[in-house]
């Protein structure tokens, strides 16, 4: 009886050591992302108050009140293709200008950040040429120059207002 039990036990031990190879399998998680090309102004608005625009001596435009005046915006762009343009709107007042008078002051505005600048004159409509500003973060200094009135006439009394708009465009290159 004892012998028979030994014979039966041997096959059981053999099956416990399988001949299968241990093949590794992998699962992969790819992670992608993107950062949009973007520009932003952190200081988007400033005001240049020019004060009295006419000369006390002859009532005509005092260009020195305009030329050289500046203000500083702050902003950034995060891609190399970013561009900057400037659009100026002339200073005007509501009262009409009869012959001999002017109610408009034209000027050039130049925006500078780092070594890049863009400008525009209010003598012509629309924005000036775009300049590639690339990645940057910091000041954008806007300076006025080349002030003039259309006829070098007497300046009409009143409050005058205009503006300089600096536009930052990320100009993302689109893939095909």
């Amino acid at each position, binding site marked *: 009886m004892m012998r028979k039990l030994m014979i039966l036990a041997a096959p059981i031990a053999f099956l416990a050591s399988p001949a299968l190879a241990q093949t590794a399998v992998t699962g992969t998680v790819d992670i992608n992302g993107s950062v949009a090309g973007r520009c932003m102004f952190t200081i988007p608005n400033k005001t240049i*108050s020019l004060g009295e625009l006419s000369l006390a001596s002859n009532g005509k435009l005092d260009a020195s009140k305009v030329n050289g005046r500046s203000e500083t915006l702050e902003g950034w762009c995060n891609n190399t293709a970013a561009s900057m343009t400037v659009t100026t709107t002339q200073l005007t007042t509501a009262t009409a200008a009869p012959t001999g008078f002017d109610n408009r002051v034209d000027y050039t505005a130049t925006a500078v950040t780092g070594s890049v600048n863009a400008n525009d004159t209010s003598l012509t409509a629309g924005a000036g040429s775009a300049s590639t500003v690339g990645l940057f973060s910091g000041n954008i200094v806007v300076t006025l120059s080349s002030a003039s009135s259309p006829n070098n006439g007497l300046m009409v009394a009143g409050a005058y207002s205009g503006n300089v708009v*600096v536009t930052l465009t990320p100009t*993302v290159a689109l893939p095909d």
Partner: protein
Amino acid sequence: MKCKPGLALIVLAAFPATAIAQTTETGTVAVEGQVRPVCVLGDPNPALVNLGQLSANSGPRTGRIAVIAPRTVTLPASYCNFAGSVVSVTATALTSNDTSAPQPGFARAVNYTASASNWASGTSTATTAALRDGTVPTASGFGATQPLPKIADITLTLSSFTAPGDLILVAGNYSGTVVVTLGPAAFPNEDN
């Protein structure tokens, strides 16, 4: 039993730049200034009007005021740079430098009309009405409002010279003045 290799590929992808709007950002520098309202009168030409002999030298009017031709004075390139201005005129009769009261039948004043033109419609006129003793010599007047900024040569005309009561004029030197004021219509007589 075959054991198939397992493959689990999970892709977590953010969409690339094709879906990104190119948003522009603008910063604005407002520019403001002002031009004060001002009026300027050109220097009068001539600055002095010499009427010469005021009394008739002969004839039935000897000693009484002569016929004196009108005189004109120009104030060139006068201007106001705002709408709503007016010219006012203040005239002072010519009076003798002899300030003593004149004897009956005599006068020491010469009246006249001063009229400024070429600013607004019509004229700004003042006619003096001094008494024979030279008192109450001053008169003022102002004209219509100029509705626009304007630059022009203002013409001042002196005319209609008379003596109070057409009396005989006292001998002496006579002098008077005309003050032309150009300013806002709201205050036409602020300097009077």
